[in-house]
């Protein structure tokens, strides 16, 4: 079976016929290309057209989920049979069920998501761009001795969501990304870093010269990195480190984390948890946003949610299940893959832009850290305890001086949010999460 709408209608009809109360179907069909060029030669050329679908059913307030990549009719029939069988083993849960009918809908806005141009960009053109970008990056400095590759990827997605309450929505997206990783070497120590650009539209990608330049600068500035002393200092988060800070918030202010008690933000609704300057927003309708969409993965219209308003936690992000369980309104934030149940997640999630140029923030620090990247391990969501491996540049008398590496930064998320003292004016979206430069007055550095 090929037509996604026909498949969704067939599955809804057949599952209802087999006695379930409610059903929804999510179908995703992608076309992907990925090309890697390394040292001027193609390393990998990859192409695929994967598809998959997920069926979620409810019966007597029990639920089950099945999924497959096999769309043949007899296979789907078997899967439907299995779905109806296994729903019997789960427990009845009063919070289960599709969204209430009046909540369903599609946002009535013009959201540019599909770039017609994707058809017309040839593989040769992509390869030429990658080769040029890598060559430009490697030519920036003789200390750049190796490359970990220039990578292109693009995809076209067709997503269909339909349910037995009569909702039918479909969206077509395109996305592109291009990146470059370089290696520099001095005194037998190698350093690596990268830069990238991503967009729904080819013409909105950064020029390859810029990506090459930033990748080279980021790699070169790590040369000669030393371990800083163990001490308490102010820490300036650059936009990349700031994105990690947002990742932690994104994991802990969602309804699922709250009812699972896997969050330090439990019982904090309407409390002042951060400084006045800090406002955190999730906007599912941001123009050109990589996280934008017209409806969420349960069929609720996307919207803009102000989550932390001038330091006060105003809302959690909730899908229908967590909303019912917590007695909290839904926020159009349901998200799932075909093989998982919906949970809540962010779309375009950002810290509102401040007014201070980043240079002034750095200039305000007498002795401290400019944090440029952090590892992903080392945060306890339950307590908010934060301890991350880090890389950065040391600030001395208001100026960036030498690179620092192989150390940790530690604090607690709640303390960090109360200790933000300056927010920059350099907000820029590269992914679905973005923060301007900001300063936290005190964190513990674990070094030598």
């Amino acid at each position: 079976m090929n037509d996604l709408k026909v498949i969704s209608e067939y599955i809804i009809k057949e599952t209802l016929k087999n006695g379930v109360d409610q059903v929804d179907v999510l179908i995703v069909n992608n076309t992907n290309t990925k090309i890697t060029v390394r040292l001027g030669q193609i390393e990998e050329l990859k192409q695929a057209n994967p598809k998959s679908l997920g069926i979620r059913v409810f019966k007597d307030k029990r639920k089950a989920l099945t999924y497959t990549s096999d769309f043949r009719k007899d296979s789907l029939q078997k899967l439907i049979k299995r779905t109806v069988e296994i729903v019997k083993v789960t427990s009845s849960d009063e919070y289960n069920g599709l969204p209430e009918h009046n909540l369903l809908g599609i946002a009535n806005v013009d959201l540019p998501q599909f770039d017609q141009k994707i058809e017309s960009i040839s593989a040769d053109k992509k390869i030429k761009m990658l080769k040029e970008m890598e060559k430009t990056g490697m030519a920036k400095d003789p200390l750049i001795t190796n490359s970990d590759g220039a990578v292109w990827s693009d995809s076209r997605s067709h997503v269909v969501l339909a349910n037995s309450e009569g909702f039918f929505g479909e969206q077509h997206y395109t996305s592109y990304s291009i990146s470059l990783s370089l290696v520099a070497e001095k005194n037998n120590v190698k350093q690596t870093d990268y830069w990238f650009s991503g967009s729904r539209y080819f013409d909105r990608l950064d020029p390859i010269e810029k990506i090459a330049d930033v990748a080279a600068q980021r790699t070169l500035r790590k040369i000669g990195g030393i371990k800083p002393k163990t001490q308490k200092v102010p820490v300036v988060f650059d936009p990349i480190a700031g994105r990690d800070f947002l990742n932690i918030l994104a994991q802990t202010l969602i309804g699922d984390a709250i009812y699972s008690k896997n969050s330090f933000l439990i019982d904090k609704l309407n409390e002042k948890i951060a400084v006045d300057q800090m406002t955190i927003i999730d906007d599912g309708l941001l123009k050109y946003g990589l996280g934008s969409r017209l409806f969420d993965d349960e069929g609720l219209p996307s919207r803009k949610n102000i989550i932390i308003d001038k330091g006060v936690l105003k809302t959690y992000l909730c899908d229908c299940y967590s909303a019912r369980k917590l007695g909290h309104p839904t926020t159009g934030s349901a998200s799932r893959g075909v093989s998982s149940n919906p949970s809540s997640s962010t779309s375009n999630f950002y810290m509102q832009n401040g007014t201070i140029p980043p240079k002034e923030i750095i200039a305000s620090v007498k002795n401290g850290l400019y944090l440029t990247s952090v590892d992903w391990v080392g945060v306890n969501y339950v307590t908010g305890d934060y301890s991350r491996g880090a890389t950065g540049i040391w600030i001395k008398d208001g100026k960036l001086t030498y690179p620092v590496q192989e150390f940790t930064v530690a604090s607690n998320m709640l303390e960090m949010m109360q200790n933000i003292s300056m927010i920059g004016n350099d907000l820029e979206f590269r992914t679905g999460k973005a923060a301007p430069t900001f300063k936290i007055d005190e964190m513990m550095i674990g070094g030598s």
Partner: protein
Amino acid sequence: MKRRDFIKTGAALGAGVIVLPHLWQACQSAKTLQGSVENMEALFGVTKEKMSELISVAISNGADRADLYFEYKISSSLKLEDDIIKDVSHGIVMGLGVRAVKGDQVGYAHTDDLDFDKMKDAAKAASFIANNPGKVNIAAINACKKLDLYSLDKLSVDCKLDQKIQLINQVNDAAKKYNSKITKATVTISDEMKQIMYMDSEGKYFTDVQPMVMMRARTIAEDGDKRQGGYSARGGRVGLNFYREPDNRPEDIGIEAAQIAVTNLDAVPAPAGPQIVVLGPSESGVLLHEAVGHGLEADFNRKGLSNYANKVGEKVASEHCTVIDSGIIPNLRGSINIDDEGNLPTESVLIENGILRGYMHDSISAKVMKAKPTGNGRRQSYKFPPIPRMTNTYMRGGNCEPEEIIKSVKYGVYAKRFGGGQVDITKGDFTFGVYEAYLIEDGKLTAPLKDVTLIGNGPEVMRNVTMVANDPTFSKGGWTCGKNGQRMQVSLGIPTVKVSEITVGGTKA
């Protein structure tokens, strides 16, 4: 995250008493279902002739060689939360991956539509890595030898859901009973059975059935306004009988997850800066995975990206360290009967008494570096080409008693359980996140410590290993390693080890 290779357990996620024997008999044996070759060809709707035809197409533009990887994977999972069975899922994913190789260049395409024309389109797309069409040579088919490391009896995916529900209920009961401070438990059991069929232009052919099951428990303990989480997991390439063995029983899993949460309610801030660290047995093997393992995967070395490149024969660790990657340990999560390009898994000595001995290879790196394949060519699924990956990475045991090591430390950190780790293979700096740790004072374990990150440079930390105990242990947890966008099931192990200095990321000056 890009280009930083990592490992994690499900630790970011979460006993019963009696096992009723009669339920265990209800599992079917997968051998009778899908094990035979004829069935495998029927499953994918192809014959050897058709497969040869596809390989010819993939190689036709002048590639050196080409291979086909068919996969059919059944997965299921159950989740218990708030004392009810909350979720059940069941999925089937199937497809074909076609690879054409020219030197060290790879053309790859995959399809989940197994119509012959669609498979041919994929073979054609893969062929474009080469552009010098010529005569096609395909060797006669020669079935590969393989090992027999996992029993296919009582496979979890074949067992009745009731049996698994009973198990997760037992985990939940054990956790809740352990202490009244446990206010929440989430228990999942997830399993899969992967059936694969491989053929290449050099005549290699094999099929394999790869089982996997993992049971995970996450708990929350609360006391006044203090709250902490705990986690435990057990599994591997095993059937459900595994959960009847000592240390793997549902109550073992539930109690362990509860214990950690309750203990950590009293956790104090960890020190910051360089400390003596004693790594407990089993999960501290994350150290080897990050500090040694990734840097010795041959792709990073043939490209000159690893800090271990061109260092075979050099001293890269203290003489106490012998580190091995072994894909041949029965039932472990990282073990394989055969790798994903037809090579036998091996027991590769990476570091022997501190000296670097060799790398882990896939077929491309073995050819380019003129080395013997080590059986480390693995792929997440038919959607990815194989690359060098670890299997089960461990350190051989030493001579001293674990207690001796702890007694030798006046002030330091004892690290026991880990959420994961990460490494920059270029410079060699790695981190790992500890969620169960204790202070060592005057040779004794004292206060539990809050979650903390340890950071170090691979070769430096390995040189700082000063004592190795006689208690090497493998972890049975759900380790999943990430590299180049591919997730891979692995395991790891280590004896109790003393490291004279690692930087500890605490908050206490």
